[in-house]
């Protein structure tokens, strides 16, 4: 029994950091005053004297690198020309920094800009200690800091008396690949941190309903009308929290292979109709991840529904706390609340547990997560209706990911550092859409079972570590037993375009020089020569199937390695061509243009006519509206 209890208590991760934070929220000034104690365990294998820290909230300053990049090409929820005023500015100030046994080092703090040398960017500072910390030893930093929260523009901040507090404390960088990894905060980058423990005390007004990424340990009601909540979280790399006096906490639970998970669904006023939708999506995602990927080891998950006007706080992930997104008017056929909850919960596996470097290899989190999002959404809501499900229009999540990829298919490889993409649009198209499509195509290539096994193996092997892209790719090769470098080189590391088309397809009488005998034709005695030419339009080489159907119901299936630019198939049969199609089962989702994949001998104008009808009607209708002015 004792051994079992010990096993239960055994940390899930290698705990490098131990944070103790005591914070007080002042809702009137939208600010937080806090002290932080960070004990860092030096597992780098060498003495460490200089330590970098993130100060993410300083990104919300006009001259920051983040803001400069937003002005260049926007970011999630913010156009380049989005209006910014004083309310949108946020900051974090470290008023004091002491190191146990080394004294006050406030004066030794120094802002650094490892990515772009923008001296006005204060999102990273470093401190050099008077003496190094020996390998295996610990060092404790004690800081007093002050946050000024912005109105929510990017994940974190406030709206009225709603607070979503993320990336709010000085966070130490990660020793990775034999050097410190502590990037500035960019418009498109997310986060990277070491595992450990968090003991956080939050003091805030008594009427606040609070959600946090930790277990509530104690609640103390203070005499000044405030309360102090104490949270503990283990084997995580971040801690976030939310507060609003208007939340409704819809509690629920789900039981999986690792035990019962308590669900806190914090619903904003006016959005309660979305609560059952959130819960269905969340429980379905928990179940499918448990079945396909691995157990969810935490005993809690908090879902925050941001209040209206704070939409940019939504759709974000933190360890054991995610933010969703809905509105009071959300139609049932538009599965936005479902997709957001699914996606953000999926991050618990890839961002929170596998914990890849989101600055440098964002595709490993966002992309793998988007691939899994499609799998889960399709399983829960149907392949063709998992994003849009109206009687008059449908769309599957997989198609939406592919459409996103088609928006910027050849500018950036998956492996580009997040802030070095051509634009935020290209970052989103490639990191989310293209990665999901690359993995969906890979699944067709190696088989669904192997792919599932690979995902499971990757998760179980690398959870609570910081694996790289190569770790992921090698795991797939290992599980599938195949050398897939040819594919990875083009799809992951390259920007090759994949596009196959039926260039031409036609039938001709073999005895074309003779007058056609109608009797021969009607009795299927006429021999035809059919030519089908398949063209590789893009520079992405991928083996493809070609299916040729004839008008007597027979068909021929060809397999082409795709190495040459084109191939021609010739048939002599007592039947004419009905259709020719490259990749008839649509296995190659990376194909840029599906509309040129197949060609029919007979014309079918129904699609064109349908579009024409809609356009004519729309034009007529617009004309009528314009004519209202006369």
């Amino acid at each position: 029994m004792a051994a079992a209890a010990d096993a239960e208590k055994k940390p899930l991760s290698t705990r490098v950091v131990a944070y103790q934070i005591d914070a007080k929220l002042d809702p009137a000034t939208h600010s937080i005053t806090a002290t932080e104690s960070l004990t860092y365990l030096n597992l780098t294998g060498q003495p460490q004297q200089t330590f970098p820290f993130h100060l993410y909230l300083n990104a919300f300053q006009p001259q920051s690198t983040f803001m400069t990049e937003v002005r260049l090409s926007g970011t999630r929820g913010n156009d380049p020309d989005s209006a910014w005023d004083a309310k949108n500015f946020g900051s974090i100030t470290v008023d004091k920094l002491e190191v146990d046994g080394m004294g006050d080092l406030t004066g030794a703090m120094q802002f650094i800009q490892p990515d772009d040398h923008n001296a006005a960017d204060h999102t990273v500072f470093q401190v050099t200690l008077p003496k190094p910390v020996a390998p295996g030893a610990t060092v404790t930093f004690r800081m007093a800091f002050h946050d000024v929260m912005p109105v929510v523009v990017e994940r974190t901040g406030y709206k009225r008396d709603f607070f979503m507090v993320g990336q709010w404390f000085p966070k130490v960088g990660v020793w990775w690949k034999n050097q410190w990894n502590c990037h500035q905060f960019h418009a498109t980058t997310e986060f990277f941190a070491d595992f450990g423990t968090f003991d956080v005390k939050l003091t805030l007004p008594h009427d606040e309903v609070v959600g946090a990424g930790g277990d509530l340990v104690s609640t103390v009601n203070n005499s000044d009308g405030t309360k102090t909540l104490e949270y503990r979280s283990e084997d995580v790399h971040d801690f976030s929290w939310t507060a609003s006096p208007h939340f409704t906490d819809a509690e629920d639970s789900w039981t999986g292979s690792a035990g019962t998970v308590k669900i806190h669904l914090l619903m904003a006023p006016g959005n309660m109709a979305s609560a059952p939708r959130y819960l269905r999506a969340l429980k379905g995602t928990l179940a499918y991840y448990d079945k396909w990927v691995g157990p969810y080891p935490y005993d809690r998950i908090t879902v925050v529904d941001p209040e209206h006007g704070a939409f940019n706080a939504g759709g974000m992930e933190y360890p054991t706390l995610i933010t969703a997104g809905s509105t009071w008017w959300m139609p049932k056929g538009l599965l936005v609340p479902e997709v957001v909850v699914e996606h953000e919960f999926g991050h618990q596996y890839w961002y929170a547990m596998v914990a890849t470097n989101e600055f440098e290899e964002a595709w490993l989190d966002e992309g793998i997560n988007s691939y899994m999002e499609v799998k889960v959404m399709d399983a829960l809501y149907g392949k063709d209706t998992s994003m849009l499900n109206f009687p008059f229009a449908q769309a599957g999540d997989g198609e939406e990911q592919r459409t996103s990829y088609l928006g910027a298919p050849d500018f950036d490889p998956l492996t580009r550092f997040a802030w070095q993409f051509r634009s935020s649009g290209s970052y989103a198209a490639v990191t989310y859409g293209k990665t999901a499509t690359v993995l969906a195509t890979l699944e067709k290539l190696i088989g669904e079972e192997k792919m599932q096994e690979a995902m499971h193996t990757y998760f179980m092997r690398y959870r609570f570590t910081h694996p790289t892209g190569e770790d992921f790719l090698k795991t797939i090769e290992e599980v599938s037993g195949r050398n897939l470098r040819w594919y990875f080189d083009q799809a992951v590391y390259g920007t090759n375009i994949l596009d196959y088309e039926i260039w031409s397809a036609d039938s001709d009488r073999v005895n074309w020089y003779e007058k056609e005998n109608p009797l021969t034709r009607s009795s299927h005695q006429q021999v035809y020569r059919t030519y089908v030419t398949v063209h590789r339009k893009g520079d992405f080489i991928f083996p493809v199937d070609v299916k040729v159907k004839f008008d007597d119901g027979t068909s021929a299936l060809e397999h082409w390695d795709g190495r040459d630019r084109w191939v021609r198939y010739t048939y002599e049969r007592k039947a004419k061509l009905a259709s020719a199609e490259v990749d008839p089962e649509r296995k190659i989702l990376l194909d840029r243009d599906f509309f040129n994949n197949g060609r029919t001998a007979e014309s079918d104008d129904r699609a064109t006519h349908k579009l024409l009808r809609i356009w004519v009607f729309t034009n007529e209708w617009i004309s009528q509206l314009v004519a209202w002015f006369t």
Partner: protein
Amino acid sequence: MMSTSQPKPKAFAAGASLVWRRQRILWWIFVVNLVLAFMGAAGASHNLADDAGVTLNHSTEAARRLVHGFDMSALQELGSLPQDPLRGTSALAALPSILFLLFMLFATGGILAAYYEDFSLDASAFFEAGARCFWRFVRLLVYFVIAMIPVVIIGSIAGKIYDHIDDVSVSPYASVWFGCAAVAVILLLLMAIRLWFDMTEVIAVAHDERRMHKALRLAAGVMWRNHHSLFWLYFRISVIGWAVFAAGLYLWMIRLHPESGAKALLLSQAMILFWIGARLWQRASEASWYKQYREAQAVSVAPPEPIAPLIPTEEELAGAPR
């Protein structure tokens, strides 16, 4: 002057009857609208046929994703192709709208003359009436745009108030209700302005009035004295038009099988036909109302019994002392 105690003109039914009896107008407008819209759409359709690598008519993918249902991502995919077969769709839609606007500016004079006179105008009379009123109505269009400025200002103020309420209110509904109220007020304002200009056009035709500012003043007076009956007339027909349009949209989008081609075409065109009919119904009702109004006015201001003339008769002159 017509007093409110006088019987109200029965223009609602009379307008519908006029549209029915003068159907040729309805069909002509429908045909012109259809032809122009088709010309705009055919360009986009031609792009699809020529530029999508293979034509959609021979594409197995098109049949799969666009015929059996309507896959929105298929349309997105078409738009993202390098050859962009959907290019110019909006530009191609703009031109027919402008041409139709010009056509209506020209035709409105003839339409209103036909409705006001309740007489089947021959082509030359119709075009003569249209040509006579064309530049008047172009000037009126300028006045209309000017009249819209206050509405735009009100809309902008309402937008700012909406943003403020949305910003400070915890519940999303406070701003929503305000928004609904603001939209209702703006719609009513738009209806009132349109009605005012409709009546101006009727007066311009009925009185052959060239001075549009005078016609506007007259129409404003008529509206001021009869705002209730006129607005109710316009409002009822608007509601019927929108209700039928919504019902048609429901049938098309929800009830009709995605693969049905002819039925969808007939239904969509029936919706447009009824929409045009509803607008003409408004114009015919307004014309009929004004005609009845003038007749009633003529009765109410009929000259009194003849009084003794101030100029003496010859007999009186003959008997008068010299």
